[in-house]
């Protein structure tokens, strides 16, 4: 790959955060996993030194935070070195974990290495259901134990609950669990339907009644727990009239680096065809961000088709999600079908109708298995 010596005249604004997907290895098998269906093998993963360079480059580029994610980031044997490298680069270091591989000694070592914050996933508030959704027996109990270790360590804790038809009715219990575990923040995230989740959409899409109850629960809990628990709520596209501002716009605020080193505008973008995503093995993060064709393709508003072009919301939602446009309209450059103005908007309500009739079986995430 040839990199120009000078970036384009109008450099894009600096990114705020880096998502570092350290590995795709994970003991859990969640059917809505955000990893691509083609998982990266351990032998292809970046080594410690390259990640350390990436963290330095991210900080120099203007990133303030790094999210160490995966797969399960603590499956990396060098996780302590990686946390130390991120912290020494000056980045606010967040560990996004399932919690099932980390005991007290390791957590203490992570804190001493400079970890700033822990985000722990839970699959449900009810243990048997949580273990079934995660595809990992005994996982929920391990997570509760891990959360108590985090609480004792003094590190701040966020509880992340991905919600869908099979756990949404227990949202009040999830809020109670966040309080019980001493979390300062709860992320209630409706499943985003790409990759594995798209393959499991029929088993996961909530009903409208569930969604309305959940939204009311969140609003009431926010009022009642103001100053005690911050609740972030990711709403589901399939009942939306307008698309979400995906990643705050392509190449505007965030970048991700995949386990194999590909630099991506979002972690799901790797599944889009027709892209030559830059790799940190060959180029600097700055070049990838400022000059690569992949980052510039959907940056700003110039690429937009109708009905985005000229829309008063063009710089609010930035055309929505490119991955969803590809998944549902077959064209990554189309308006996100979540927008009611998209000619493809009807496919969302058809999917909702189909899911109501569907069963509850999952296609679990597995290496070497590509869902149909």
């Amino acid at each position, binding site marked *: 790959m040839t990199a120009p010596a000078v970036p384009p005249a109008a450099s894009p604004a600096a990114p705020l955060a880096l998502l570092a997907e350290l590995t795709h290895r994970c003991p859990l098998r969640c059917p809505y996993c955000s990893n691509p269906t083609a998982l990266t093998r351990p032998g292809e993963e970046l080594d410690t030194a390259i990640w350390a360079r990436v963290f330095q480059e991210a900080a120099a580029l203007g990133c303030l935070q790094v999210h160490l994610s995966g797969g399960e980031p603590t499956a990396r044997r060098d996780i302590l070195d990686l946390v130390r490298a991120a912290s020494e680069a000056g980045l606010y270091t967040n560990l996004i974990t399932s919690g099932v591989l980390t005991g007290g000694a390791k957590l203490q070592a992570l804190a001493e290495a400079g970890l*700033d914050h822990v985000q722990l996933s839970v699959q449900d508030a009810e243990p048997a259901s949580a273990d079934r959704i995660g595809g990992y027996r005994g996982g929920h109990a391990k997570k509760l134990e891990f959360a108590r270790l985090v609480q004792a360590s003094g590190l701040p804790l966020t509880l992340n609950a991905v919600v869908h038809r099979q756990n949404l009715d227990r949202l009040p219990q999830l809020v109670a669990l966040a309080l019980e575990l001493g979390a*300062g923040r709860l992320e209630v995230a409706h499943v985003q339907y790409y990759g594995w989740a798209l393959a499991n959409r029929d088993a996961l899409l909530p009903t409208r009644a569930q969604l309305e109850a959940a939204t009311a629960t969140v609003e009431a809990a926010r009022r009642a727990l103001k100053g005690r628990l911050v609740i*972030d709520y990711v709403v589901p596209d399939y009942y939306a009239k307008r698309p979400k501002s995906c990643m705050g716009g392509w190449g505007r605020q965030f970048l991700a680096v995949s386990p194999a080193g590909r630099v991506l505008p979002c972690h799901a973008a790797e599944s889009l065809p027709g892209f030559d995503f830059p790799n940190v093995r060959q180029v600097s993060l700055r070049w990838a961000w400022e000059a690569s064709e992949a980052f510039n393709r959907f940056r700003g508003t110039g690429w937009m088709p109708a009905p985005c072009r000229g829309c008063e919301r063009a710089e609010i939602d930035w055309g929505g999600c490119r991955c969803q446009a590809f998944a549902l309209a077959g064209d990554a450059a189309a308006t996100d079908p979540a927008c009611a103005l998209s000619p493809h908007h009807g496919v969302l309500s058809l999917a909702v109708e189909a899911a109501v009739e569907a069963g509850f079986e999952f296609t679990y995430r597995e290496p070497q298995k590509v869902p149909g």
Partner: protein
Amino acid sequence: MTLSGASVPRLGRGMKLREDKARGQWVVLGPERMFVPDEIALEVLRLVDGARPVDAIVDDLATRFAAPRAEILGDVLAMLEDLAAKGVVAT
């Protein structure tokens, strides 16, 4: 939260005040969020160390900015209560 001159504020759990050189500003970083304090809030946050009571913070500001102490006390208390509601500071 009700604060008084005797309260001893500190940064909230997981909150860090640091310089953002790329954008020429100071920011408070927290769990997956950030706050950009205005000039006055930044002056206050620089004095929030978990040891100084609000009264000492107000004395410092009143001296440096040559402003009436009672007015500064009211402003600082209102600002700290707002920051506490966001989790940026705690007592």
